[in-house]
């Protein structure tokens, strides 16, 4: 029987793994390669890397990281951020990425996604959607939630059905990093209009919300950051000599406090909890 996918989203800024609230105010949490290896050992199903500033600066800087981690991590790696052309995709696949996630360039030039699907196979192309609600309607944003496209999410998904993609990863920007849960009604609306596998991100604050997501929607997977990161981050940072680059805010990390809104959990504990509630997971 098919498993629900438990994915970890690793947001990267410069050399650091970061996490913000509503995709803003990035806190430095540690080193992405260390988190990757640990999550692989802890049985994560997939890793989703997002270069949080690539789209804004027009470049993806994850090549070295992906090349390094794919040497000893044998699960699917999805990479996104600043992917503009077929060459960017080819170069990321060449260093070990399995799936490429595209947002801004897909909105700007839908035909690009069609070309990419034709060349690299539909299954390897993931459309990322940054959804923000305004007057009861979700709209697509880009540049990590900074810029507005004026395209309604539901319209865009109908369009994606035509263009073709292997997966849709939808981020609820309003809930990102807040732990306030997912908009399940909206996910149900999406399910009615597409047959493409959906992965949901943004809002998981405890294990019950993840359970609700799988009980009440047909989504294929959940992409988690805060819920796992805040559990594991303290394991790495016992050494005060670790030098973090100047990029980003390290106060949260150094304070060794825990987030109040997020009931962090170990990967396997979440999977065991879901399995007990009859959600099939890879244990």
């Amino acid at each position, binding site marked *: 029987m098919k*498993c629900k996918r438990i994915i970890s989203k690793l947001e990267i800024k410069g050399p650091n793994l970061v996490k913000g609230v509503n995709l803003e105010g990035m806190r430095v949490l540690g080193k992405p390669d260390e988190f990757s290896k640990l999550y*692989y050992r802890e049985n994560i199903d997939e890793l989703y890397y997002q270069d949080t500033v690539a789209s804004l600066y027009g470049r993806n800087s994850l090549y070295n990281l992906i090349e390094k981690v*794919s040497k000893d991590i*044998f699960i*699917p790696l999805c990479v996104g951020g600043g992917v503009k052309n077929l060459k960017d995709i080819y170069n990321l696949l060449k*260093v070990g990425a399995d799936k490429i996630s595209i947002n801004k360039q897909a909105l700007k030039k839908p035909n690009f996604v069609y070309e990419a699907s034709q*060349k690299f196979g539909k*299954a390897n192309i993931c459309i990322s959607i940054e959804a923000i609600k305004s007057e009861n309607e979700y709209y697509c944003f880009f540049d990590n939630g900074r810029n507005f496209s004026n395209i309604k999410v539901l319209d865009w998904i109908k369009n994606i059905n035509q263009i073709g993609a292997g997966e849709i990863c939808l981020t609820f920007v309003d809930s990102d990093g807040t732990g306030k849960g997912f908009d399940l009604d909206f996910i149900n609306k999406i399910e009615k209009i597409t047959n493409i*596998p959906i992965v949901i991100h943004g809002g998981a604050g405890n294990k019950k919300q993840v359970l609700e997501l799988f009980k009440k929607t047909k989504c294929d997977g959940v992409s988690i950051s805060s819920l796992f990161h805040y559990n594991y981050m303290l394991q790495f940072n016992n050494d005060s000599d670790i030098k973090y680059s100047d990029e980003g805010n390290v106060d949260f990390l150094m304070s060794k406090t825990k987030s109040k809104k997020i009931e962090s959990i170990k990967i396997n504990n979440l999977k065991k909890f879901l399995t007990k509630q009859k959600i099939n997971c890879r244990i």
Partner: protein
Amino acid sequence: MKISIIDLEVSNLYSITNAVKYLDYNYVVSSSKNEIDNSDCIILPGVGSFPYAISQLKKKNIYQTLIKNVKNGKPIIGICLGFQLLFSNGQEFKNTNGLNLIKGSVKLLPKKNNLPIPHVGWNNLIKSNKKSISFFNNKDNFYFVHSYYAEPDDKKVCLSYTKYGNFKFCSSILSENIFGFQFHPEKSGRAGLNLLSNTLKNAKKI
């Protein structure tokens, strides 16, 4: 044992080469006739479309080389699209002849029950014959990404079945020196590396 990993210039070969390296086997990434002839085992990976992959094999003049080597008893391991290419024909975009090493055809997953296509994610293997036992455990999950599935004429070659919703398809094959997996063992964590290791050990004995 020297392995030749076939390069069709469409797929991510990094994962499979890393896995073979991790398992400590010698390999060469190649699309040269000589190197394939001189290797002891062939891995045919592949992502992309059936017609394009076959046209690449022909363009590189190794379509017949592969058939000849396998008919002479050299072990071959097909993965994902590489697994599908082993069959007689594929129906992706248009009807295309495959390598015809296994009789049967490659078809689109049924669009019923509202199951998403492609079938993406982790799924388990159901043992279909006694040989299965030396390859994998029933509880192990493997990573699948595909919209098409292969249907062998002779069900006996099927090493495992997998269920997607209520739809049951052949997810791996074993027929003498021919091994094939619809899923990606090189992307399936520890279970995948074990399976790949067991397969290479079996290939070595041939």
